[in-house]
């Protein structure tokens, strides 16, 4: 196994996943049928998970599937299915607030591009990415040493999110 050929294979895979992500992302945004949007989102999330795998971020990749595909998308599907009149599948997914939206998009895109160009990408010559065994223990290590505070704050954030969710849903139910 020469390093050259593996490079090619992973390159192809990278472009495949990247194209899949961009294309399905486009479908999410431009499809007028909300169910198709939700479907396309599934492919986007999978493609991003694939990209994570290519980056050797195994834990992140599986977490991506577990939380986003197995959790958030289910929530979205519930939302879609609980909404009235999906039958005419023409649930509107049109464009509103074009001006503010484009401004925000431009700002975010600009920031991203800025970060992208300003970051000092360095490539360690001859580094073998597959030498990295697994990321999970490192993440665990970091969580209980350097990042204890963010870790505990995260639980507070989750708590607030849960209370908020329960609150909103309860008001909905009283109606």
């Amino acid at each position, binding site marked *: *196994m020469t390093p050259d050929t593996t490079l090619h294979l992973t390159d192809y895979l990278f472009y495949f996943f990247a194209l899949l992500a961009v294309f399905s992302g486009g479908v999410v945004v431009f499809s007028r049928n909300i169910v198709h949007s939700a479907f396309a989102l599934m492919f986007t999330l999978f493609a991003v998970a694939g990209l994570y795998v290519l980056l050797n971020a195994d*834990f992140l990749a*599986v977490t991506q599937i*577990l939380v986003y*595909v*197995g959790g958030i998308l*289910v929530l979205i599907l*519930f939302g879609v299915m609980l909404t009235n009149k999906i039958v005419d599948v023409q649930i509107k997914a049109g464009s509103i607030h074009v001006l503010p939206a484009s401004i925000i998009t431009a700002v975010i895109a600009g920031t991203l591009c800025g970060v992208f160009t300003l970051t000092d990408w360095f490539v360690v010559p001859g580094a073998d990415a597959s030498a990295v065994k697994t990321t*999970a223990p490192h993440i665990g290590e970091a969580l209980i040493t350097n990042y204890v505070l963010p870790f505990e704050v995260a639980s507070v954030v989750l708590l607030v999110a849960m209370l908020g969710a329960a609150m909103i849903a309860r008001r909905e139910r009283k109606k």
Partner: protein
Amino acid sequence: MNIIEPLVKIALILLINLTTVAYLVYTERRVSAFIQNRVGPNRVGPMGLLQPVADIVKLFFKEDIVPTAANKFVHSLAPLISLIVALSTFAVIPFGNTIHLFGRDIKLMIADVNVGLLYLLALSSLGVYGITLSGWSSNNKYSLLGGLRSSAQMISYELSMGLSIIGVLMIAGSLQLDKIVVHQGNYLGGFLPAWNIFLQPLGFITFVVAYFAETNRLPFDLPEAEPELVGGYHTEYSGMKFGLFFLAEYANMITASAVITTLYLGGWQFPFIENFGFSPLAVSLLQVAAFGVKVALVLLFFIIVRWTIPRFRYDQLMNLGWKVMLPLAVLNIIITGFFILV
């Protein structure tokens, strides 16, 4: 990367898996008949052993009826998703120790992923899709209700599943399934195999109950509770698409048994085999056999439970999931942590 070896393993696993599915259906029918004092299928072939073949051939020749009101694309996609998710869990299950064959070491699992345990959990969380989408796309009231019920049920129990697994993880200290099994090869006090079922009985119970709910088997088969929902999410399915759902249900059962065996029953470990003085090859083969026997026993347990226990009511099911299983699973983590510290 040697491509032949994984391909052979994949082909073998799929083949064995699907044959087991076919005969699992047969076994379930025979066992249920036995439990209910009936005979069961016994006409096709000796003792009815060719019944599964007849069933499969029949499914191929059945007309496929898609209701006019259905969303056709999603309707055909849903069974595919169901079966693929059910099968692909098997990619990370170790079904034997590394075996030395034809002058090389062969690992008896398809992919030894570093995050195998999370992969299992992630895939079981995808199981919701096949059912929800089939229920929704059929545009039938029973299907939709069945699909929704089942997805709410599955996500509720998935939490207890994930939390129970953490106990195993704390003991093994690795997300790799292979390492978890190797870790269960020790002995407690010299005589009891260090299987996780003995190390954490509470976690085992919550995990098994949660997995029963995940596979939608009785007493958790609310999604297709016949008396109230006709066929549940697959009411509007016929022919091969129905067949795929059927296969998926049983494939899920096999996956569940394999996972339970791997995580809690010592996987391919054959207790005390090192004392018998077999050749390494014989040991490896016996370990594979041990794995097979354990899985078969868990499957039998699944079947017997199905034909013995009545179904829950939906509010009871949700109560059990959120108010009993979830706290118990968290309690298990705390107990495990406490014991590891002491």
